């Protein structure tokens, strides 16, 4: 069995030497998860605000659906997207299977409920008095909503981080719809950090797999550090 130490040193040397395979794999990971996040966050913010502040029939059912969506396994999402994008499936003509776009689509489906759910609880958690005070000060409906969202911004940030965390650490759906493709020159097309870990483990390259895992953790960690700094400095 490999030693953790040799994995750490390999991870370090891969990062320091800017290993081109590693860079392209990290690039695909960040690109796909980042794009999924850019699409999901506005949608989630809108849905969470509507569900949290709006009053309309079916609201509770929708909330239940959002909460259920948070627990759907990524493999199931990947399988459904695979069948939809498959050449003989309904959207096969688009030729999107085995592309980063297909990965973005499945990650959007995967993380939107999660981000919405966390944002929703942040919106609901805002003290009613704040909204009422805004009303008393003569704020319009839209201004009241914006006030509440402003109050809930830390919760929103947590939601974004949780969404990014789930997206970049997810392996089931990107493996299925992306195909884990790398070109013979070592440039990744649809191989992410997580699917690269799967391949290396299967090949018995446990140190490399662990090293990639360490890189993944470092990325998520630095993002969270930046976020918590933003929070503490109150610049957000």
């Amino acid at each position, binding site marked *: 069995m490999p030693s953790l130490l040799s994995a750490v040193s390999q991870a370090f040397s891969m990062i320091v030497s800017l290993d081109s395979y590693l860079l392209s794999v990290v690039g695909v990971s960040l690109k796909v998860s980042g794009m999924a996040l850019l699409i999901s966050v506005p949608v989630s913010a809108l849905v969470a605000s509507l569900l949290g502040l709006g009053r309309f029939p079916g609201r509770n059912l929708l909330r239940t659906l959002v909460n259920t969506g948070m627990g759907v396994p990524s493999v199931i999402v990947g399988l459904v997207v695979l069948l939809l994008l498959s050449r003989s499936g309904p959207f096969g003509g688009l030729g999107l299977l085995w592309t980063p776009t297909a990965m973005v689509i499945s990650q959007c489906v995967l993380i939107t409920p999660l981000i919405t759910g966390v944002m929703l609880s942040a919106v609901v958690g805002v003290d009613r008095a704040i909204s009422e005070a805004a009303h008393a000060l003569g704020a319009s409906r839209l201004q009241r909503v914006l006030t509440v969202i402003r109050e809930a911004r830390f919760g929103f940030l947590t939601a974004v981080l949780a969404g990014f965390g789930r997206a970049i650490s997810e392996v089931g759906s990107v493996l299925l719809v992306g195909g884990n493709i790398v070109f013979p020159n070592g440039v990744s097309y649809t191989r992410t950090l997580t699917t690269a870990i799967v391949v290396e483990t299967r090949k*018995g390259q446990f140190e490399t797999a662990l090293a990639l895992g360490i890189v993944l953790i470092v990325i998520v960690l630095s993002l969270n550090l930046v976020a918590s700094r933003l929070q503490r400095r109150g610049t957000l």
Partner: protein
Amino acid sequence: MRPMKRVVVLAVCLWGLFSLGQVAWGVGELVISTTTSVYDTGLLDLLNAVFGERFGVPVKVIAVGTGAALRLAREGNVDLVLVHAREAEDEFLRGGWGINRRDVMYNDFVLVGPPDDPAGIGGLESVVEALRRIAERGARFLSRGDDSGTHKREISLWEVAGVTPSAPWYMESGKGQGDNLVQASLMGAYTLTDRGTFISLRERLELLVLVEGPLNGGDPLLMNPYGVIAVNPAVYPDRNYVMAMAYIGFLTSPEGQRIIGEFRVHGERLFVPMALSREPRFEQYVPQDWRR
């Protein structure tokens, strides 16, 4: 909210940076579905680099089990399959999904197990006899259980042995070959594996080859031939049939066959090329029981 704006600008810049790295590839591309047992050895990286340079076409490889590889082809998601389960290949041909099958190469399966060999099968020449003994002694056997080529072969070997594997000694992992070997090693179980994956993982496993395949003069029942089949352009006209045929041509050419034959992992030969033959071998083109 101004810092928020900055974050957005930063995100867009990063996005642009990563997009730069992804220059559009030329007109065509070739998508292959194949088995993890071939892909994980690294042979295809070697072949695809030469092919890609020669024909100016990027080759994309989807590595899954044989069952999944054929299914992806049936749904029109790849141009070509390279797999190792003749009966499943024949069904694929009979269904009209694939055409122009060729034999490419073979390697072999080996029966591996824990060094203390509780069923006493070490050195047996017949894999069928070994399986019977494992069943009689009720020694642990870990099957992949994933409809892969190796799994299909294992099932047919149990059938030949006239044994129905049963609980509690027979277990399925549902994993790929490498993961399954690691698990078998940890469990002290017997398992069937292709030689290539076993060799690349050997140092990390507490498993020994107990019944040899034909590559080392062992049981011919453990022969593991690989076939290549193009997806039928009459079914999926927009698949890259021309490049698929070029790829089949390349694999079965003297050059492709030489690359396959010279390929080594840890100094060991993993595949024996079998496409070149002075005598016609018609059986490779049609299902095995095909009659006019």
